[in-house]
């Protein structure tokens, strides 16, 4: 049969979810941090009255608008995909997870979408204080949104506060226990910190890029300086949060941690495997480069601590793709360590007074631009692939969660998603790079200088002539 050559409907549905959610999260990972950054910039402008902060606000708000739109439309897909492709999961977990997503919409999405219009188009139409409030509400909205969606995800990792009904449905017993399930608080902290770092590194890279071209650009200096302070302060903290989350995972999901570490045998004084090739058939990690006892020290905070290996668990309880978990984890950690190094070096250069004119460092910062996105993405792959073969950890299998949709249908939708995402978001991301390439200028035109504001009739006339929506380039004549 022709279809035998294709992956199963289940595998394609998994890949489709992985593809769409990975793509989606690139946008909020940047949006969450950027919203808070914009609130800080506007606050600094109102407080210090320095124009440079307003210029930076206007520069980044244009980026925010494009990025936010891409996050919204790719996010709507997610809210429907639970039903279209994971209907058995939805039927059983709906009573518990549904309200968390419902509250996300009610408390966050409406807030963000409602005040985004004011934030983008309202400067000049409402008072400065009210506009600042709108910016803050959008920023708070992004943080609340993260709260609910991470609570839902964490419940799937560490379910609690539920009972199971006679029909197999999960029934809520204690909402507090459901929302603040064991893995949630640290996951929230770790993820939000990750989005702040992601934003800092992108802002830093854009600032560095413009400093390489014109070291005297004050706005580029300010954004670069702010980004480096953030990186220096937060990257080391993120290491601590990550370590704490690892300890929790060891308690609740020892299989996942064993896969992350590449440990097959249970042992005391386990080594830290730096690199190696986890081999699922031979049940060992080949060609491994190890540091003795360090694994136990990190996970148990004890040289002789016992670490369970994968062989401790029956094969159908282990993550289905150990190398993916193992390597994703290493990529995340490597990106994180590079960020910490970047932060430390920035402090040293700042102390020496050469932060803005050390070319090799500026180039390094440009190269680190995507490192936050990389770390966040691979961190998620680690934790999600590590949750397999379950959707609700230990209770509901991925194979039992899928919709009764025929393989050709899933193949069609998957192909459509891939094509559309690459075209549309490819174009969107390309445009983001166009915005980045444009140096931040004095009297930057912002989103509010766009056509809709003219209905207000109070737009300062001189700024109208040259701008085009969001852009500061003159419009080519038709």
């Amino acid at each position: 049969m022709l279809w035998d050559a294709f992956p199963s409907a289940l595998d394609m549905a998994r890949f489709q979810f992985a593809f769409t959610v990975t793509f989606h999260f690139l946008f909020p990972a940047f949006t969450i941090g950027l919203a808070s950054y914009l609130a800080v910039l506007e606050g600094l402008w109102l407080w210090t009255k320095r124009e440079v902060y307003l210029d930076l606000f206007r520069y980044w708000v244009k980026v925010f608008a494009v990025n936010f739109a891409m996050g919204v439309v790719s996010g709507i897909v997610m809210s429907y995909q639970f039903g279209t492709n994971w209907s058995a999961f939805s039927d059983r977990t709906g009573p518990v997870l549904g309200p968390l997503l419902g509250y996300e919409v009610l408390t966050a999405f409406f807030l963000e979408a409602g005040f985004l219009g004011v934030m983008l188009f309202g400067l000049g139409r409402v008072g400065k204080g009210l506009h600042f409030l709108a910016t803050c509400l959008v920023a708070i909205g992004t943080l609340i949104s993260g709260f609910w969606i991470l609570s839902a995800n964490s419940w799937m990792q560490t379910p609690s506060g539920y009972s199971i009904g006679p029909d197999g449905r999960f029934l809520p017993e204690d909402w507090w226990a459901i929302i603040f399930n064991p893995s949630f608080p640290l996951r929230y902290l770790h993820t939000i910190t990750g989005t702040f770092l992601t934003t800092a590194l992108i802002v830093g890279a854009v600032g560095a890029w413009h400093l390489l071209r014109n070291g005297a650009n004050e706005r580029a200096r300010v954004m670069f300086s702010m980004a480096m302070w953030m990186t220096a302060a937060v990257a080391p903290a993120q290491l601590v949060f990550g370590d704490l989350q690892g300890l929790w995972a060891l308690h609740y999901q020892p299989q996942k941690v064993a896969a992350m570490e590449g440990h097959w045998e249970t042992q005391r004084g386990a080594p830290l495997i730096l690199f190696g090739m986890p081999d699922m058939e031979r049940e060992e990690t080949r060609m491994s480069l190890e540091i003795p006892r360090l694994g136990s020290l990190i996970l148990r905070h004890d040289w002789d601590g016992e670490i369970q290996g994968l062989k401790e668990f029956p094969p159908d309880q282990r993550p289905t793709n150990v190398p993916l978990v193992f390597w994703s984890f290493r990529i995340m950690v490597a990106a994180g360590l590079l960020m910490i190094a970047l932060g430390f070096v920035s402090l040293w250069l700042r102390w020496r007074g050469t932060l803005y004119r050390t070319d090799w460092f500026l180039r390094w910062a440009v190269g680190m631009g995507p490192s936050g996105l990389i770390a966040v993405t691979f961190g998620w792959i680690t934790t999600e692939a590590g949750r397999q073969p379950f959707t609700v950890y230990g209770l509901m299998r991925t194979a039992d969660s899928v919709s009764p949709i025929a393989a050709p249908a899933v193949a069609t939708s998957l192909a459509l998603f891939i094509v559309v995402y690459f075209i549309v978001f490819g174009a969107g991301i390309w445009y983001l790079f166009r915005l980045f390439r444009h140096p931040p200028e004095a009297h930057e035109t912002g989103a509010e200088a766009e056509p809709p504001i003219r209905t207000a009739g109070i737009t300062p006339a001189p700024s109208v002539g040259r701008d085009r929506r969001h852009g500061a380039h003159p419009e080519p004549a038709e």
Partner: protein
Amino acid sequence: MINETVAVIWALLIATGIFLYVCMDGFDLGVGILFPWLRDREDRDTAVNTVAPVWDGNETWLVLGGGGLFAVFPLAYAVILPALYMPLIVMLLALIFRGVAFEMRFRAETPKQRLWWDRAFSGGSMVATFCQGIALGALVQGIEVEERAYAGGWWDWVSGFSVLTGLALMAGYGLLGACWLIWKTEGALQDRGRELARWLGSLTLGFILVVSLVMPFLQPEFRARWFDFPAILLALPVPVLVVLLAWRFYRALDESEEAARKRPGPVPPRQVLWHDGVPFFCALGLFLLSYIGLGISMWPMIVPPEITIWEAAAPESTQVFILVGAAVLIPIILAYTGYVYWLFRGKVQAGQGYH
């Protein structure tokens, strides 16, 4: 008993949420549908600018529809979404095209690029609307269910009726878009909106008639609702009101045209001309009546012909937990949504400095 009442409250709330979505995203999708009839670039820019500050919020109601169904009627969510797999996926992709085109068409660097984003915006709006209509038709027509799961194939949604509802919704959203332009613009663009609203109004009314005639023959339960005594007493006012509203709609178009002719110059910024809004509200009224007609047919089914709202309902503690939040938050959301609409009130003038 409490649980049954809460389920009814939730059914009404979700129905209201979906209706609000249809009203609000209806006109901004409608603006996209009308693009082929708005050839002038400045008109297109102005038309898009009338919805730019609010479309994000409008689409959030769609997320509430999905999220709300998942939370309160998970069984319905788990049956309907797989049954409507293809139309829903295509709708989501079309909304992506449209949403990104929204941001991008103003940023195009050459006329050719802009043309492509215009096409993405317009095509995305049309396809998304058509798919929503198909989804509605396929749901009303009935979904095959076995043991809490969808039991049909992946092409079951295709039928003459679902294509009919798809086209009907395109006409309807187009009408909303045209009426929105009458309200929010002036001059030549407003004239164009009136012209479009006239024939889209006729088209929409024609579709309402045809769909209403076909509906009772889809399911015996529907027929009983519309033709048996005493149910007919409840149902009869609906078509009567449609006729009255249609008459009011065309009168409002005439009034708005006359007012525009008499107006000496441009409308001052932020001044709301309510008489220009009457056609829009009449069109919304037609949507509301059609929606109520649909509700009369379907009640209390959430997945016809098998699953009622009570069978699909989540346990009481789930429904109550989110009802508490909804009771507090939905009024707040409506308040600030209203505030944003008020902030961006009045006519949107054509942009200067474009050429």
